[in-house]
């Protein structure tokens, strides 16, 4: 619909999946009450998981999943050529996601363990930005559909979108959640990027940092706090490396 005389353009969107659980793609079909409006605001020209139409004529490419094989690298580069705007959708695409955990092992041994004598082709996990240039990253495991909707709106309006600068803690407080540290559990809330509305601490698991670090996180103090509260190095490390989002941090 037109508003203030601005004719909204309807961007042609392609959705492409690489190594991941397809949970982020699934989110595009979630938040059902606005799905029809969402699908009217954009023109889906390629979305293998829900549609048999396929096309190279897209402006926006949403990339889900990490890159773990040669054919994926080739396919991604091809998509990059067509897309005006390439968006990494979800933590796998943004950081490698949980797939990155395999990078800690020798890949031959990994293959041996799972496939025995018939190893399958695989590369160390890479985030999308490690293979092609990325215009926008939407983190989250899975992504938050409400946030995706807002970002798409900003794309349509052609105005910048700013991710929240605050950490998850803030949203936890706004939900009246009792701090999970108070309950004796580890939580990355103080250093993880907010915007997810803190479902995990509220649900009882503590934050695992799926959205990567908040703007200017105080990692040093966080490590001190975790240590003071008796959490072991191994546990903290496991948590920080879980989604690959804290990979670049010292």
């Amino acid at each position: 619909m037109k508003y203030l005389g601005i004719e909204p353009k309807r961007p042609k969107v392609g959705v492409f999946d690489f190594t991941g659980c397809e949970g982020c793609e699934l989110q595009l079909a979630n938040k059902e009450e606005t799905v029809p409006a969402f699908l009217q605001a954009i023109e889906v020209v390629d979305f293998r998981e829900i549609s048999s139409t396929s096309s190279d004529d897209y402006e926006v490419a949403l990339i889900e999943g990490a890159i773990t094989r040669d054919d994926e690298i080739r396919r991604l580069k091809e998509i990059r050529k067509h897309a005006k705007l390439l968006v990494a959708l979800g933590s796998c695409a943004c950081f490698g996601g949980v797939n990155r955990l395999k990078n800690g092992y020798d890949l031959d041994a990994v293959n041996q363990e799972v496939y025995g004598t018939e190893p399958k082709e695989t590369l160390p996990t890479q985030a999308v930005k490690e293979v092609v240039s990325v215009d926008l990253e939407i983190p989250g495991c899975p992504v938050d559909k409400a946030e995706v909707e807002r970002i798409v709106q900003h794309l349509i309006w052609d105005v910048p979108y700013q991710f929240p600068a605050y950490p998850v803690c803030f949203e936890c407080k706004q939900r009246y959640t009792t701090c999970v540290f108070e309950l004796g559990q580890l939580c990355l809330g103080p250093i993880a990027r907010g915007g997810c509305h803190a479902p995990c601490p509220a649900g009882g698991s503590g934050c695992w940092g799926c959205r990567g670090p908040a703007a200017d996180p105080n990692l040093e103090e966080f490590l001190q706090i975790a240590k003071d509260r008796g959490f072991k190095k191994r546990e903290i490390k496991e948590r920080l490396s879980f989604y690959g989002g804290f990979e670049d941090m010292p």
Partner: protein
Amino acid sequence: MTSLFRPYYIIQESEMAQPLDYNRRSRLKHVDQVFRSEIINIIPLTDMEKLFQLRILDGAERERFSFLPGQFVMVEVPGYGEIPISISSSPSHKGYIELCIRRAGVVTGILHKTRRGAVVGLRGPFGTHFPIERMRGNHILLIAGGLGLAPLRAPILNVIENRTDFHDVHILYGTRQPDMLLFNYQYEEWNRISDINLKVIVEQGDESWTGPVGLITDLLKKIRLEPLETYAIICGPPVMFKFVCAHLQREGIPMDRMFVSLERRMHCGMGKCCRCNIGSTYTCLSGPVFDYWTVMNLKEAI
């Protein structure tokens, strides 16, 4: 049993009956109402700035709306956000106001896409103003850098309209490049008015630029001042007004005769959201216009 508490309906209370008047600091509680205003004209100034002429739709509200040079309004594009913008037109001009807006983010970005006829919301005017009354009978320096001409245009027009009230009037304006000059179609007019000294300078000229090249302080050096009978208004980025004010101070102009307009993040304009605090002074209530002495005394102001 009748219920224990009678609900209190704020809109029915007597205070609410008063008309909307932000300037008189009324006790009115309906402060979240906006004036629905129509964009009557859009005038592109540069690649980044456009001048918007806005008319309040409701006739009675329009009649009542008045402001002083230096004050700002909160402009709301429903759904996108609300931003502070200085009024760029003359206070004596009734009927519509002019806002010069640079494309910078969400709201300004959307405003730049709207078309004539679109309706936006206005609240205000808010904030302090330049003390034009006090300046009468003095020499006037009006100095702007870059987008600073937007807030300065109101006092410029005000001074021009009341030219006889003032002694010498100097308007100095500088930008980085010639294509960034705002309101260049008006210089001719301002310059033709005898007795107004308008000088424009750019930091980097181009092929077509014939005027002076350099910093705004270069223009200042050429002006002979009578410091104790001069008032100065300086609008522009902090680095610029810091240099200019320091220069003028050395020339002997008292710090409380120089006025600047500060910019801070704002969400309400009413001293509630705290986002514009400098130290702990609300820019929206005690500013945006401050004299230089106050600015010097505000910790973290520049």
